[in-house]
């Protein structure tokens, strides 16, 4: 029966080419626009580290004065140098990483090599294992290297390409901010989006070009800042250029906790640490800690740009308009067939059969609209990628969106078809046959 309906649908659509084309185009445009927006939203709110996001946690403590005006209850995102150091040494998490970033002048260790600025992430040894960073050559540094302030550096694939033409550069040396560093590893492309581990500079963008041991980095001549700093207090001199100032937060800190018990222990440890700091007089506030998992952290920070969310609503509005439009066109389509339906009814087709036939026709339009909508969505995403926006690179068309687009198209066409089909199935046979 289905095959027959399919055949009927095909004939019917062929007979009213303009109407069929309009319906298909309307669905395709609606699907194209909304799927583009959905894909952007999906990518932006996606899980940056699937598989590892469950075990990564972001601890926060509150070192702010009690009477800081305008201060919200939420502790600062980043840690002061002292707290970062203390929590780093508090070895109860299986893995932990303290980090920050800036940019530094780099040149190859050869006479007359040109100098260029490269962005860097200063962090500790566990960073690579915790975040599952893939290595192309060499390996990460060790905790021993951290402790000994070793002058070693891990390059990104792109920076290795730029400086060494992509060859295995492990063992080569670089001059970074006047000091000589030895390359011990090159990582493959790695840039989880959103950039959950450091949202200070926006959630979407490029990963740093090289990675240095945190404590070695602190020893460098620091005319290049320490990443965004947030300071309070009445002494304007303090925040200036001293990363160790006790009233400035700037260091990101992440821990890996593998079991719920570890999470509970760590949370208790944070409270205990805060209470202890309060007793010592460093913290003025009662323990105010947070320990959010990666995805909770992204949620709390509202990383999806508001503009993108608003645009997604607009896209749904457009999809709705397309639906109403399709309903209208289907009504027109099916009513036009009244005569034909009357004959079929008179020849014994049940209402149910007419209904089914009409729905099949709606489904065919939906599939056609979806198939045409897919390249449109692909085109839409391509256009997003051409834009110089920070999150452009994450506007990919992943296979799941393919299914969603087709499904959405068919579903919306069927939904649009239900009512017109019902109406068509209620056509009185006698009346129509008479007027033929």
């Amino acid at each position, binding site marked *: 029966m289905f095959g027959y309906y399919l055949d009927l649908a095909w004939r019917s659509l062929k007979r009213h080419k*303009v*109407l069929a084309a*309009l*319906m298909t*185009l*309307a669905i395709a*445009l*609606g699907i*194209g*626009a909304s799927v583009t*927006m959905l894909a952007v939203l999906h990518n932006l709110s996606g899980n940056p580290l699937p598989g590892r996001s469950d075990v990564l946690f972001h601890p926060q403590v509150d070192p702010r004065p009690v*009477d*800081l*005006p305008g201060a919200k209850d939420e502790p600062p995102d980043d840690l002061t140098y002292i707290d970062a150091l203390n929590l780093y040494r508090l070895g109860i998490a299986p893995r932990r990483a303290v980090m920050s970033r800036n940019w530094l*002048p780099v040149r190859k260790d050869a006479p007359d090599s040109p*100098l*260029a*600025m490269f962005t860097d992430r200063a962090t500790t040894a566990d960073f690579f294992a915790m975040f599952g960073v893939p290595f192309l050559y060499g390996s990460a540094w060790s905790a021993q290297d951290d402790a000994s302030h070793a002058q070693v550096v891990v390059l990104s694939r792109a920076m290795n390409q730029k400086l060494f033409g992509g060859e295995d550069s492990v063992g080569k040396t670089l001059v970074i*901010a006047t000091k000589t560093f030895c390359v011990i590893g090159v990582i493959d492309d790695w840039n989880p989006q959103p950039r959950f581990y450091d949202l200070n500079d926006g959630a979407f963008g490029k990963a740093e070009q090289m990675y240095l041991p945190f404590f070695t980095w602190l020893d460098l001549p620091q*005319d*290049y800042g320490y990443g965004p700093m947030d300071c*309070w*207090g*009445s002494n*304007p*001199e*303090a*925040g*200036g*250029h001293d990363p160790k100032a006790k009233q400035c937060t700037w260091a990101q800190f992440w821990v890996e906790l593998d079991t719920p018990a570890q999470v509970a222990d760590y949370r208790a440890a944070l409270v205990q640490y805060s209470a202890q700091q309060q007793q010592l007089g460093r913290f003025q506030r009662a323990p105010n800690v947070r320990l959010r998992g990666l995805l909770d952290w992204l949620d709390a920070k509202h990383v999806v740009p*508001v*503009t993108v*969310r*608003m*645009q997604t*609503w*607009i*896209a749904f*509005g*457009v999809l*709705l*308009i*397309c639906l*109403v*439009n399709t*309903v*209208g*066109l289907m*009504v*027109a*389509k099916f*009513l*036009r067939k009244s005569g034909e339906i009357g004959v079929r009814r008179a020849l014994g087709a049940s209402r149910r059969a007419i209904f089914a036939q009409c729905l099949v026709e709606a489904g065919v339009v939906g599939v056609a609209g979806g198939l045409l909508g897919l390249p449109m969505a692909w085109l839409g995403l391509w*256009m*997003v990628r051409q*834009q*110089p*926006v*920070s999150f452009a690179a994450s506007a990919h068309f992943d296979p799941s969106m393919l299914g969603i687009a087709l499904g959405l198209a068919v579903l919306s066409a069927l939904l649009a078809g239900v009512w017109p089909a019902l*109406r068509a199935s209620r056509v009185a046979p006698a009346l129509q046959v008479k007027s033929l």
Partner: protein
Amino acid sequence: MELRPIFATLRKHRIPAILIVLEIALACAVLCNAVFMISLRVGQMHLPNAIDERGISLITVNGADPKLAGSDIPRDLAALRGIAGVTAAAASNTVPLSTNNIGWSFGTSPDTTLSTQHTLNMSMYFVGEGADQALGLKLLQGRFFTNDEYADSKLGSGVLPGIHVAVLTKNAADRMWPGQSALGKTFYSKPNFYQVIGVVANVMRPWVGDEEHAYNAVYFPLAPDGMTSGYIVRSAPEDRERILQQAEQILQKLNPSAVVKGRTFTDIRNRFFADTNSMAWMLALVCVVMLAVTAFGIVGLTSFWVAQRRRQIGVRRAVGATRGDILRYFQTENFLLAGLGIVLGMALAYGFNLFLMRHYELPRLPGIYLPAGALALWVIGQLAVLGPALRASNVPPVVATRAA
């Protein structure tokens, strides 16, 4: 034109009529809000900025030894001023829209500290001699800094200068002292204090979040210092590219260990607004798609109507209606349906706006968007209906005599 027959017909074809109305209503709601969002973005991009945007370039020198700034900067500036076509050059820590921002909060009372509540957060511009010329600042009141003030102002270990003079933008001055002249007044961030010696026309901040705070900026004079690692160079707009290239070469030679990078202000501005700009374009594209879909719907439904009423049209023609009458009939019909849709759409637009206001901090939709959206949909409706209506007007009267 007699409206009654139109209403009578519409009552008979209630469903398609309702669908057209609904479609236009939805399109109106979405269109008004989308165009409003676009206009917010475009508005931000076109905020006035009282500097010579088309003549300015910025060249940054990173990695030079800050201890040598005192001798390096005058030497570099002399070299820059020597390039043919350069009309002015000065050192500065940043320029508008460069995203390189240092904000600080100041108040009007001597006890004002960083942690005081009633303060104004301003972006600080630290500028060297000649910066007013290099930027093309427009002085509204008072004066700019003297050579002595530039020479005496040092940062020390903190980020605030030791000198006690400053120039504010118009907006910052008005916010600090509403309704009064700011000239001669003093503002504070304990233990520092600064007297306002001049007010300049509004210059944007290095980082602009929202329009309300786009202009809160203060200018401090500064002797050559590691902080002022950028050189502002002004020239005729057509000379900028050539001068940038020359300047990069010269400065690189003078500072072999530093990273020298030049950009025109146009480039800086475009980069700053890249996100905003492309978002506006994407929204505009979505609007076009939506209007196209709406128009398709109208074309489809009207075509259907016309086909259904061929006989009726034939009869009307046979009893004396002109082609124009038939054409006008369908146009009027569409006008009425669109009107109904627009009324409904305005209510929807307002509701949608309330939703966006509550969840996404969008401002209230200004009234002007509603009539504008209405007009747009009326025009689109009329254009969409034209084809089918023309076809209807071409129905020959003889159709009336044929059996249906």
